[in-house]
């Protein structure tokens, strides 16, 4: 069996048995041994693959030095030339999950090597990499390791041998968001009638085309003292500084931007304009405050009607942006506003 495929394993400082939180700042290193979960992994590959080494990196180091970390790790991968890269599982650990996810994305995009990882479904890393890597569904704590590894190994085995993966349910991974066209036993009309009868009987049924879910959030309590409140201004109308320094897309936005407006009286032209591709930009470009009314908020701040306009102005474009992206933006922006103790938010949309 000289034709074994090669697997490279990635773990954080904890699973790499270097140390706990105190070692989270360690830079990545390559270790030709099989460390932590990598140790038992080879056995699960049933003699078809071998683990050629382990990359260990501190979670904080990775997240704070993403580019440097990726450069190092990608170089190791190039040298070792594995057929499959395995990372984690990260369970519900946010920083570890983000590291696995960013690594997975880079490896798939740049090196075209398949990656298997494992995460709890609510790990923020899932959304980052599930389209690129295979993310198996794990429990939320390391107690699920014994269950996770065989699932990951089974997938690694298929990837290593170039065998097509089955459905997410069969293989235990989180759906990648791919609509796969396939044949089923029953014709469509039959499936429709069965679905109808199940609905009529109040039995469970599964739609073949799930609609995006809109859940409702309980309203946050009102601001008590407006005169002391810090108000943040956000827009999905794509108002950006001249030159669009962060390259916010005109549609299907992949990112948001924040700009310091503490010294500004208004979002005036030509310092600001709209990059939004979803409406006629003429009016917004004449007076950007028509989309995001910083001018009025600043006046109210002066008058003492409100305590303060928050230093940062947040912006993105709303058109064609996937629900999952909008959600991601909201979570990131919300976390920042919460940390900054902002009391209320005005969000304008075009």
């Amino acid at each position, binding site marked *: 069996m000289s034709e074994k495929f090669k697997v490279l394993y990635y773990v954080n400082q904890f699973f790499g048995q270097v140390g706990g939180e105190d070692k989270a700042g360690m830079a990545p290193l390559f270790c030709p041994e099989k460390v932590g979960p990598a140790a038992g992994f080879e056995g699960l590959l049933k003699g078809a693959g071998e683990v050629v080494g382990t990359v260990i990196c501190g979670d904080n180091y990775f997240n704070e030095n993403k580019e440097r970390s990726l450069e190092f790790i990608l170089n190791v991968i190039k040298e070792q030339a594995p057929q499959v890269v395995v990372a984690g599982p990260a369970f519900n650990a946010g920083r570890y999950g983000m590291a696995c996810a960013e690594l997975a994305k880079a490896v798939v995009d740049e090196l075209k090597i398949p990656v298997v990882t494992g995460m709890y479904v609510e790990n923020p890393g899932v959304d980052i990499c599930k389209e690129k890597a295979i993310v198996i569904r794990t429990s939320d704590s390391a107690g699920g390791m014994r269950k996770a590894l065989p699932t990951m190994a089974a997938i690694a085995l298929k990837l290593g041998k170039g065998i097509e993966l089955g459905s997410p349910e069969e293989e235990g991974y989180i759906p990648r968001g791919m609509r796969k066209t396939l044949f089923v036993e029953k014709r469509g009309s039959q499936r429709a009638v069965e679905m109808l009868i199940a609905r009529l009987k109040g039995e469970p049924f599964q739609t073949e085309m799930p609609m995006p879910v809109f859940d409702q959030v309980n309203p946050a309590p009102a601001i008590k003292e407006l005169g002391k409140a810090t108000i943040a201004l956000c827009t999905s109308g794509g108002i950006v500084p001249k030159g669009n320094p962060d390259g916010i897309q005109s549609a299907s936005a992949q990112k948001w931007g924040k700009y310091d407006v503490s010294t500004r009286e208004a979002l005036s032209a030509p310092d600001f304009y709209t990059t939004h591709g*979803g*409406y006629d930009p003429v009016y917004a470009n004449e007076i950007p405050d028509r989309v995001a009314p910083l001018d009025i908020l600043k006046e109210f701040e002066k008058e003492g009607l409100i305590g303060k306009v928050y230093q940062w102005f947040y912006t993105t474009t709303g*058109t*064609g942006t996937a629900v999952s992206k909008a959600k991601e933006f909201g979570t990131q922006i919300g976390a920042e506003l919460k940390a900054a103790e902002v009391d209320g938010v005005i969000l304008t949309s075009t």
Partner: protein
Amino acid sequence: MKKLIITNNPAVKEKFKNVFFIDGSPQDILTKVRDLVHQGHGLISHPLSASLRMMFSPYRTVVLSTKKEQIDFFSAEIIEDSIIKYKNHMNYRKIDNVHSEDYQVIDILLLEAALNEDTGSW
């Protein structure tokens, strides 16, 4: 009842009055329609065709109502969705210019059907 026909089909321009002709792509037509809807015009005809093959057409004609004070939300949602859907298709398809004459003819026939259908003056 005045209707406004937005088109990039030269044959439509020749044959009809109240035509706003744009020398551009179907995408330009949809963008212009969107801007006009935002200004208060309503959609009379749907901005998309009913078949996949017509997505390849170099021509697109949309009928709008006269401008109203209040923006028609329904029209605004439809044009927005239509643009997303159209772009989604054209990401990996290209316009079929080889048969542009035939597309011109079908475009105008579908327009005539739409105009015949809309008898009201709401």
